[in-house]
Every structure is written in C-alpha cells, then in structure tokens.
C-alpha cells in the first residue's frame, strides 16, 4: 500500500503507469502569473501540449529562500503583475478544465497560513490541485497541515536533501503522498550545465529506502534532456524541470508566441529523454 488512504492518489497512479511502460515522468514547472495571468495560461498549456506528465505551478512568494535568481525573478514579475494565491489558483482551475494533467503547487508556508489552512486547501482542491510542495514546511512541523490536506485529497510532497539522514528520510517517505521530492544538489533552484554528481547517488539512496512505497522525483539543477535521461536511468520516477523553462519565459518577454513555441519544443525534448527506449 503506497500510503494510508485506500487507493493510490492520482499523482501516484500517473507515475506508476508511466513506470509500468518503462518511462519516467516529466514534471514541468512555471511560476503562476508570470509574466501575467493570460501569458501564464498559454505557457502552461504549451507545457502540457509539449508532453509534460505533471504540471508544477509556483504560487509566487516575496521571499523565496529555496530559489535561485531565475525563479526569484519570475516571482517578482508575477507579483508585480498582481498575482495572488487566490488568483493563481483560479488560473490553475482554468488549466485543469482545459487539459487532463495532474497539477502540483509549490509555494511557501506563510501564504498558506495567511489564507488559512482549511480555506487554502479547500480552494486548491476545487481548483484541481492534486499535490502541494512547501519547501519551508519541515515534516516535523507538518501534522496539522497533513491532516487538512488529506481531508481535501491533496498530496503533501516533502523535500529530501542529499544530506538528509536515513531516519529523517524514512519519516519523509512515510509521510509524503504523491512522490518524494529529491533535491538533487546542495543549493537552491537554478539551471546548471552539468548534472550534480550528488544527484544520481541521492536518487539511488532514497529509492533504496523507499522500497517502492512511494515514487521519487528529482529536481533542482535538472535543466537538459541528458540530465533527465541520467536521473531516470538512476531510478527516479520523475524529473522536475523548472528554472530552465522559466528562463525561456524570462528571455522572450517581448514575444509571447515565440515563448509558447520554445516552451513546447523544450518540453517535448525533455519528455523524450524520460523514455530510455527513445534515448
């Protein structure tokens, strides 16, 4: 049994069915409302049409401490154009109505707290959110959050780091639903030229501890198709690509059509890399 509920969650079954076909999942990230609501909707749709298996949407926070300059910049752009937690959840609802894709939200705890746990999670559920990643919510402090999120059938996805001890890792595996988010380097989000050597080792370590009870997806510094291929080959069930896509948005602010085409192409290349038989 992958978790305490009777059935697999939507995210788990998505990852499971890809795995049974010998594929990893491509989890594609954009910051909600970047650079504005309408463009974001088009861009997110392009990611799905390009082949993203799961969409991860950031609700922008003023002080994103887990993020490098690229996602900091996107958060600032989104906030300047008026993005709010409620507004981004509204955009997510539009995507979930238009496309059949599991959607995961990444945000920081204060935004959830300011809205109120119950209200935030209820709205998220109604918007079609299937999972939540909160980098500044440690598993040790998460009891009331998890209680409320499971009530609303939203997976709580915890982050594990390369230096997370086996004891804590077991706790994270036990208390995560959907997948465990393996941070594949020491540091913050951002595109890197090479895959950090620590990444493959980390994935193997967490896979061994998880014993198949929950899927593992790796993120941070995974930006190119060859990184995706390597991380999937190492045993990850999914690869999360964020900053490399956000950078496409940032570099093409003057040409919205070009942004969409480039995003779709990038995702399509990244997706191909999740299928070892095609690589």
């Amino acid at each position, binding site marked *: 049994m992958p978790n305490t509920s009777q059935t697999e969650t939507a995210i788990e079954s998505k990852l499971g069915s890809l795995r049974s076909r010998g594929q990893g999942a491509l989890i594609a990230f954009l910051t909600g409302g970047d650079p504005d609501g309408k463009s974001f909707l088009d861009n997110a749709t392009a990611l799905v049409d390009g082949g993203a298996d799961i969409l991860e949407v950031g609700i922008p926070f003023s002080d994103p401490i887990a993020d490098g300059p690229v996602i900091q910049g996107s958060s600032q752009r989104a906030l300047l154009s008026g993005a709010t*937690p409620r507004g981004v959840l509204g955009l997510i609802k539009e995507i979930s109505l238009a496309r059949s894709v599991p959607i995961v939200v990444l945000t920081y705890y204060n935004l959830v707290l300011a809205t109120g746990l119950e209200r935030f999670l209820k709205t998220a559920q109604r918007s079609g959110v299937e999972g939540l990643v909160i980098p500044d919510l440690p598993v040790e402090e998460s009891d009331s959050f998890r209680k409320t999120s499971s009530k609303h059938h939203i997976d709580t996805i915890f982050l594990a780091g390369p*230096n997370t001890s086996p004891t804590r890792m077991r706790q994270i595996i036990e208390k995560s639903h959907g997948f465990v988010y393996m941070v594949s380097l020491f540091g913050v989000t951002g595109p890197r030229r090479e895959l950090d050597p620590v990444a493959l080792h980390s994935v193997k370590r967490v896979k061994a501890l998880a014993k198949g009870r929950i899927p593992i997806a790796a993120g941070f510094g995974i930006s190119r198709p060859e990184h995706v291929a390597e991380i999937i080959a190492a045993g990850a069930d999914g690869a999360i690509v964020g900053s490399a896509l956000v950078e496409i948005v940032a570099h093409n602010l003057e040409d919205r059509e070009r942004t969409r085409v480039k995003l779709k192409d990038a995702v399509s290349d990244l997706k191909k890399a999740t299928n070892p038989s095609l690589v």
Partner: protein
Amino acid sequence: MEPLIQLELSYRKLSKESSFRKELKGLLANYAGRPTPLYLARNLTQRSGGAKIYLKREDLLHGGAHKINNTLGQALLAKRMGKTRIIAETGAGQHGVATAMACATLGLRAEVYMGEEDMERQRLNVYRMKMLGARVHPVGSGSRTLKDAINEALRDWVTNVEDTYYLIGSVVGPHPYPTMVRDFQSIIGIEARRQILQSEGHLPRAAVACVGGGSNSMGLFHPFLHDLEVDLYGVEAGGEGLDRGRHAAPLCAGREGVFHGMLTYILQDANGQIQSTHSISAGLDYPGVGPEHAFLMDTRRAKYAVATDNEALEAFQVLSETEGIMPALEPAHALSYATKLAGNYRKNDAIIVNLSGRGDKDVETVAKHIPN
C-alpha cells in the same frame, strides 16, 4: 533541517563543556571588554524627571555594540564543530563587524551578506568589515535590506553546508538560533541584575531595550523574566509612525506568520507576502521579530511600544548633550521611550536601558536629518 539538527546537538554538548565556557569567558573579558559598566545617567534622569535611569553600556564593547557577545560564542562553536568558513547577514553592519572580528581572532574565514541600501547608509561599517578581512557580498534582491541579506545567507548555507557555519546575528531564524543567541546575549542581563543590586540594593522597576530582531532586548530581559516586579519594555521602530504604514514594528502592528523558519509576528499583506519595512536605523529594519518576544508579548510578561524616527533622532541628541554619550540610533529608540517611562515611577526607583551600541556609525545619518 539536517544542519540545524547537527547544530543543536553540537550546541547542547559544547555549551556544557567547561573548556568551551572557560574559553568564551576569557574572550568576553579580555577581547570584548566585559563586564560593561552600568552607568547612572544623572543628567538624563534629572531632565526626564522620575526614576533613576541606568544605562547598560554595551556601546563600550569592542566593535561598539552588543553583537560581539554572540559572535564570539557562535564562532567558537563553529570552530569546535570543525567549520572553516563563516557566513553572516548584517543590517546596520554591527553584526557584520562583530563577526569579522570574532573570525579574525579565531582564525576563521568570514563572508558577510548586506543589503545594498544598508551598504549605502552604513558605509563606515562596510569599510570596517573589509579592513577586518571579511568579504562583503552586496545583496540587490527584494528590499535590499536585512531580510534579503538573510535570504541570501540561507541560500549560501544550503549550497555550502559542508564547510560553512551560518552565524545569525539575532534571536531570529529557525531553532536553535533564537535560543542560542539569547543564551549568548543573556550575559547583558546577568551583569545588569548583579550591578543594580550592588548599586541600588534592589531590583529595577523596569528594563527597556530596542527590538529589531530582538537580541539585545532578549539578552537584557531573560535574566529578569522570573523577577515579576520588573516591568519589561521592548521598543520597536515606529519609523514615520504606525498610522502612515512606514515602520518596522511587527509586534505592535504585524500578524502571526511563518518566515525565516520561525512562527512569530510578521509585517505582511493580506495574502501573506512579506512587506518592506522602514526605519531610520538599519539595525531595526526587519519585518519579523524573535519568536520568544512574540511569546513574551502574548503572555503579557513584556510590553512592546514604538518610538518613531524623529523620537530616536531627538534621543540621540539629548543623550549626546546631557551625558556626552552618542548612542546608536537603535538604542536611541529605547532611550526615547525610557525618558517618557521614567515619569511613571518614583524618584527612588531605577530603570535600566540597554545602550546596545554606540552612535559613530550613525553620525552621517543624524547629520543629514539635523542640520548643525
């Protein structure tokens, strides 16, 4: 989380070891200049009318502020943990200077994150840090002040956690920092309590200190927590006034939230976005506050008030002229409030104000605001 767990274990173990305590005690005495005097400010007392105002002279410490109490403690801890590189954030620059000093004397490498706006208004401290051998990293993100410097230091720490120790300068951040910094700063209150009993024969009626992150106030308050007859007053930066919205007073005007790894009062908008703050003193310019202050306020053990930019500037001048002591603009907030408070007590009562730093760093700022 893992580095925080390691830090807590190391701190618990080392802080009990007699060799650690002995070395720290020696450094505080012979390097930093402890104990600091508790000075009866007769002229200020006369001018204020009311209780005797005593000043705890943390401004006389090496480096010019209370910050060295904490940096020596943590740098020593870092060294014993085998770390070689120390990172720190700084607002007014006093913590950066104190970090640079502690690292120099203990043979550690120091790198300090500082908001670009703060680098501008506290230029003197930027020079000092560099001369003391520290590298200063300008932070251009967000509001370019203390909170952004903390963000960058945290990002550095998760990247270089193997050899790097993050030396936080106030009672803020994730556990165990608020506890640890409080412990290192409690020497202020321990000395002050002993000194006032010696000079007055009884406890003071009140202890007053400014609150940014809240380390100098927590250091003064903590040893008096169980002396219920001693009123504790924390003074936040009222900036241009609470009604105008440009201030740095999370306890007086903020809401509960989670930021920088702590649950506390925070200045935030309705959605939970952290708001930018304003204070004439860079050291108080922070949208959060140590969680133990939030607890002391909620349990009503301590009271919190504000002093505005103008009130702090006035207190700066008053203390300079009446006592020949130039306070930093941070404790000038506490002084301003204390001079009003003194009138509520009798002439035989005593109140202690923590004079947490000296004003040399603020001379330019003051000169700009007060012509001649």
